[in-house]
Each structure stands twice: as structure tokens, then as C-alpha cells.
């Protein structure tokens, strides 16, 4: 095979493109700028850590099923871990969102990083709501009968039926987590490609 033929292969082109945009030292950096040593920069990784616990505890709940999480003490414990990791996930994500909003984190060609964060936030809210209606208890029955009027008012009720436990559970444990994980991965890779957004004073120092 000639060099030209190798150069034309899609694997070669893709490898070069990925390596050019995201070299290993950018993907897994050993240093960050001085301005990153602030508490406001820790909430993104706190959100990631909470997401890991959410997914891990969700997998355990999926393995053992509703009887286990309703009736056994270990099941109750894992169910509570799932709930509280979701609480920490949203808590950290909101503080992360406020921090990035006031930093105008979309500066410097980071619009896609911002937008993937926005869509991840919306996907996570949908995942949380479908979780409420998938608990298989009186709470979830009450929430789903209340939610159906809201969903029906939007016209989406024919396709997204909150009273259909099977459909809601599938959205909650397959589609929405998959979407949230893929979007989070893209979001983190974009942060690695573009770097952490600098505060305003660092930009003005650089342009002075």
C-alpha cells in the first residue's frame, strides 16, 4: 500500500485530526493555570463525581429490582444513595452553572461547551422527572397523575405518557442516562480542547 493510499484512509485522517485537536497533554493535563485554584472551579468535577455515584447506584437498583429497593434495608440504603447523589448532582450543577454564567464561560470560542452544558442540564431534569414517576409507589402514582395534565397540555402526551410505567422506566434507565453520559463526555472533551475559561481580569491583563 502506498503512502498516498494510507494518507487517504479514513482511520488515518481521523487519527491525525483527533491527535491534532486533542493531544494527550491536553486530554490529561498535569498543570492548570493559576486562576483555576479557586473553589468556584471545583463544582464541575463535583457534578461529575455525583453523576458517577448516580449511575453506579442506578445500576445496582436495576440489578435487584423494585421488591429489593422497597422491602430490604440494603435496598433502602442504595435507594437513598441514588436519591442523595442526585440531590448533590443538581446542587453542584446549579452552582457550576451560576459560576460559569457570571464568568461568561462561552467566551473564546466556547459556545459549544456552553450549549452542551445547557442541553445536559435539560436532559438531566428530564431524567430526574422520569425517576420520580418510576419509583413504583404511591408517590410516583400521585406525581404521574398530576404530571399527565401538564404533558397533555403541551400535546406531547400521545408520545410521552407519564402514566405508562414501562415507557417512563425505559426513558429513565436507558435513553436519558445514555443522553446525559454522552453529552457530559462531549462537554468534558470540549473543556479539554478549549481549556478552562479564564476570569475577566486575566483576559484584560493579557490584552493590556
Amino acid at each position, binding site marked *: 500500500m502506498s503512502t498516498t493510499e494510507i494518507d487517504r484512509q479514513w482511520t488515518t485522517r481521523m487519527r491525525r485530526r483527533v491527535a491534532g485537536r486533542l493531544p494527550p497533554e491536553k486530554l490529561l493535563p498535569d498543570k492548570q493555570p*493559576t486562576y483555576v*485554584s*479557586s*473553589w*468556584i472551579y471545583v*463544582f464541575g468535577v463535583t457534578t461529575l463525581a455525583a453523576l458517577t455515584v448516580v449511575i453506579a447506584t442506578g445500576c445496582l437498583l436495576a440489578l435487584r429490582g423494585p421488591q429489593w429497593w422497597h422491602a430490604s*434495608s440494603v435496598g*433502602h440504603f442504595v435507594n437513598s444513595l441514588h436519591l442523595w447523589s442526585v440531590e448533590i448532582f443538581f*446542587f453542584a450543577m446549579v*452552582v457550576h452553572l451560576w459560576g460559569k454564567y457570571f464568568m461568561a464561560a462561552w467566551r473564546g470560542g466556547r459556545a459549544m461547551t456552553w450549549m452542551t452544558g445547557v442541553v445536559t442540564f435539560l436532559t438531566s431534569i428530564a431524567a430526574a422527572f422520569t425517576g420520580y414517576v418510576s419509583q413504583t409507589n404511591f408517590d410516583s402514582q400521585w406525581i404521574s397523575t398530576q404530571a399527565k395534565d401538564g404533558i397533555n397540555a403541551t400535546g406531547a402526551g400521545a408520545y410521552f405518557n407519564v402514566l405508562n410505567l414501562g415507557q417512563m422506566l425505559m426513558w429513565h434507565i436507558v435513553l436519558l442516562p445514555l443522553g446525559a453520559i454522552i453529552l457530559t463526555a462531549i462537554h468534558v472533551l470540549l473543556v479539554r480542547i478549549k481549556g478552562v475559561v479564564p476570569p475577566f481580569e486575566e483576559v484584560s491583563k493579557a490584552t493590556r
Partner: protein
Amino acid sequence: MFWYGPFASLIPLDNLGHYLHWHFIQIGVANLVVIVLMVVTFIAALLLPFPGRQRRKENP
């Protein structure tokens, strides 16, 4: 009663939640507490010094 019975009485969760009303605004106390905690955490994150920041400035 489960093993965590003694702790369950710290925050009674079996009663109806408390709500605050102000004109058309109605919010559960638990939700308000979470929002206040998020605001406090946000302000603390901006103001509290980060460990090792001074050292990093001296030896970047």
C-alpha cells in the same frame, strides 16, 4: 422499625411539608432551604481562599 429509627425523629418526614406563601408565590420550606444553601455555597466559593493558591502564585 429499622436500625435508623432513633435518627428518623430528627427530621420528621411522615407529616405534610411546610409551605410559605407570598402573594402568588408558594414554595416548600425544604426547597427554599436548598436554594438558600446553594446561594450560600456559591458566595462562599467566591470568597473563601483556595488551599495552596498563594504558593502556586509564587511558584507557577
